[in-house]
């Protein structure tokens, strides 16, 4: 009964999405309010139906109804509740449903705001969003139906993939999917602007908050994924340049480029074609990501099963790409692009270089990811493109990006002067060199590594903090307020700029963490008898014994390891292995001692069934916590940039097109 109701809900929602697209498009063309109202109501109905389908599937999972194929594949009756809940998106069909639920949510949110937008813009945007929703509903209702019944109900389920049986499973996909789906909103606005034939700044200001919010969620999702990988996968790493990881990085890179280059178009009628192309590519890459995960075209640790989904998603990707770019070319002359630059050095050109570097980075990752396919097509031989390649090839671009992050914000709009820039950069450069020198002499880090891994991040950090300092000092001089107040007011008055600077600072912290932990990593793999110790760096690890305990879904074998520094006992770690009946290889539970300056990471690599000996892999990761802290700072900066402040009073002033009045655009959501 329930599965059929859920399935019916999806089918009705599919029909509604088509209806919604039609009335939304009509509302763009006619001034009658009833079309927009109809679209709004359809959005509500669609959301309710999709939510209902989700609730139905959750109910089936929680009650372990094994007559449904999806429940039998992703759930087991002995699972704790939270893993049954997470089973909703643990496999292909459910994840499509989750994606669609988020899409329906965004359609609803935009529908509610549509009344405040220009008629054509609001209408066409909603229409595009309804179409996107319809595509995913088509997938969810017809091609990858999660409510499909088994011919005979299974006696017991197979359970969630053990790798996913962690609390992180509740958070990481939600963050990522929100980011992916969220980028659909600025894309829909861009497409609407093209369809309406009006490409001016209004579409940009309308979408600004949506874009940064989507970017924020995607950044958080990617960082969280790395943290999850580090904490639970048991290999001590956080990024493997896996094709699906790359597929999340690529839209992020393009999205970051877009967030920067729209700032140029907000001020002058420049880069319109480029921005439209950029947001199209960003959105298309989110589809590319879901295609890679679900098509089985490239092998990946994230890959779901394949089937008809692959060709469907490839077709969708093709339509988005070719359709949007075709529309762009068709409207080319209507775009009113008037590109001009006063001087070579200006914030505008800085953003162009920023875009160049980010797009080049994205191209590098893209090409490396699909090269195995290309090589096979051309030579008929399978090759691998993995970590060593990507690490080598992306380092130069990342270093250049770091340089730009430091120097860029210091260049003024329209007319910059090289002399002034050099003067502004002198102090950060000096501070960076001093800091690096100190690190080399006192910290004992090798010279060439310091130069590569630390000098540039220090430079950027110094430049950012000096910007804050200068601005706060300027405020103080003007208003006489205290330093903390000056800082707070700075953030309030120009939260976009200073939020952005905080994000840059966060990225710098991440860069330092990445550099320190990759270069300084030490590792040993040793077999120990009970009572024996191994030495690693400043630590001594003593193996005290093995223990086994029955868990609801697996057998947990853990070793007790005492960690000493000299004579002092620091902590007890319990690295272990989880043995599942459905899987041959065990899954690791690592024992980690977290610290600001270093993490001690211990893996149980093998053990004797009698408990007499065990093999341990112990690693020290210097300063790896800086990556997660830096991630937190990035999220904080994003929140500062996007947070809705007290509304300023806006008086409408008619001005000829091409003139932007400073401050008035703060009102737009």
């Amino acid at each position, binding site marked *: 009964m329930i599965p059929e109701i859920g399935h019916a809900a999806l089918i009705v929602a599919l029909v509604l999405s088509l209806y919604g697209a039609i009335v939304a498009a009509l509302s763009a063309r006619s001034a009658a309010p009833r079309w927009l109202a109809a679209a709004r109501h359809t959005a509500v109905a669609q959301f309710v139906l999709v939510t209902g389908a989700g609730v139905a599937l959750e109910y089936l999972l929680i009650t372990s109804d094994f007559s449904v194929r999806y429940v039998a594949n992703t759930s087991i009756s002995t699972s704790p509740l939270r893993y049954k809940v997470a089973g909703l998106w643990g496999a292909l069909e459910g994840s499509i449903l989750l994606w669609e639920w988020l899409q329906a949510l965004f359609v609803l949110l935009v529908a509610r705001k549509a009344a405040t937008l220009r008629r054509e813009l609001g209408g066409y945007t909603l229409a595009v969003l309804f179409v996107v929703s319809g595509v995913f509903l088509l997938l969810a209702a017809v091609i990858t139906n999660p409510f499909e019944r088994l011919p005979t109900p299974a006696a017991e389920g197979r359970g969630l993939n053990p790798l996913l049986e962690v609390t992180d499973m509740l958070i990481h996909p939600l963050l990522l999917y929100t980011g992916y789906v969220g980028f659909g909103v600025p894309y829909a606005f861009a497409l609407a602007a093209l369809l309406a034939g009006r490409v001016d700044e209004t579409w940009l200001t309308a979408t600004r908050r949506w874009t940064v919010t989507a970017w924020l969620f995607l950044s958080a999702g990617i960082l969280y994924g790395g943290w999850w990988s580090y904490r639970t996968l048991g290999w001590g790493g956080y990024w493997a340049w896996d094709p699906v990881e790359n597929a999340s990085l690529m839209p992020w890179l393009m999205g970051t480029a877009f967030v920067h280059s729209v700032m140029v178009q907000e001020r002058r009628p420049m880069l319109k074609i480029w921005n439209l*192309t950029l947001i199209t590519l960003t959105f298309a890459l989110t589809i590319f990501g879901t*295609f890679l995960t679900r*098509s*089985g*075209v*490239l*092998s990946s640790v994230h890959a779901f099963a394949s089937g008809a989904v*692959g*060709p469907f998603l*490839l077709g969708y*990707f*093709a339509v988005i*790409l*070719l359709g949007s*770019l*075709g529309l*762009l*070319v068709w409207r*080319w002359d209507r775009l009113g*692009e008037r590109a001009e630059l006063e001087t070579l050095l200006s914030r505008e050109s800085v953003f162009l270089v920023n875009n160049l570097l980010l797009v080049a980075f994205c191209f590098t990752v893209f090409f490396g990811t*699909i090269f*195995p*396919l*290309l090589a*096979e*097509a051309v030579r008929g*031989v*399978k090759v691998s493109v993995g970590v060593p390649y990507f690490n080598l090839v992306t380092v130069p671009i990342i270093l250049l990006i770091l340089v730009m992050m430091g120097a860029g914000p210091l260049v003024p709009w329209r007319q910059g002067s090289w002399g002034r820039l050099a003067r502004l950069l002198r102090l950060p450069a000096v501070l960076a060199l001093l800091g690096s020198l100190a690190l080399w002499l006192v910290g004992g880090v090798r010279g060439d590594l310091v130069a590569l891994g630390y000098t540039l991040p220090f430079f950027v950090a110094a430049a950012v903090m000096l910007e804050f300092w200068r601005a706060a000092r300027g405020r103080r001089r003007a208003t006489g307020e205290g330093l903390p107040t000056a800082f707070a007011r700075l953030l309030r008055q120009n939260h976009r700029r200073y939020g952005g600077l905080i994000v840059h600072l966060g990225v710098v912290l991440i860069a330092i963490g990445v550099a320190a932990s990759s270069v300084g990593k030490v590792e040993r793999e040793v077999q120990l008898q009970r009572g024996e110790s191994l030495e690693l760096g400043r630590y001594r690890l003593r193996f005290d014994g093995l223990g086994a305990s029955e868990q609801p879904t697996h057998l947990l074998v853990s070793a007790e390891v005492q960690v000493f520094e000299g004579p002092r006992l620091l902590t007890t770690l319990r690295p272990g292995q989880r043995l599942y009946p459905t899987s*041959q290889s065990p899954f690791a539970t690592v024992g980690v001692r977290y610290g600001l300056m270093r993490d001690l990471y211990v893996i149980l690599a093998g053990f004797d069934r009698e408990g007499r000996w065990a093999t341990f892999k112990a690693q020290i990761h210097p300063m790896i916590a800086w990556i997660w802290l830096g991630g937190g700072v990035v999220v904080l900066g994003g929140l500062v940039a996007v947070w809705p402040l007290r509304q300023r009073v806006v008086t409408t002033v008619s001005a000829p097109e091409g003139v932007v009045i400073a401050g008035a655009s703060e009102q737009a959501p």
Partner: protein
Amino acid sequence: MIGTWKRWLVPLAAVPVLGLLAYGFRTDPRAIPSPLVGRSAAAFSLTTFDGQPVSLEAYRGRVIVLNFWASWCYPACYEEAPVLEAGWRAYRDRGVVVLGVDIQDTEAAARRFIAQFGLTFPNAPDPTGRVSIDYGVYGVPETFVIDQRGKIRAKHVGAVTEALFREKVEPLLGEAPG
């Protein structure tokens, strides 16, 4: 600005990429062609679960069906075990030997597997994995067909069916050893 027809290059540039991705549907990223087919098989020397020594040298002059398996490899190894046993019984008097190598497994589970299917052909464990690496094995089950002179003539990834015996082993029976 850019001429009218040249603008269409922008969307058209996407087409080759799409074509390449579509090509990807015809390939299987997990099917790695083996470089060993057509080359001499690596020598090995193992001890069966019954305590008998087996080696490549010992079977020179006969066609060897070398099968890598594991007791946890479900369902493929479970599907092919009866096929291999039947093939062994049918061809053992015609100069063919079926040899199973158990990898990444425990002895108890392996013996249970052998008992479950009543396997009578020689099966030996490869505890250090040397033999599986020597044969470029990257998953189970994998089966090699080696001719009387010790050359690898075929490799099959996945569960074996009787088609293997018909199409790959039979044609070799007429060849003269040495």
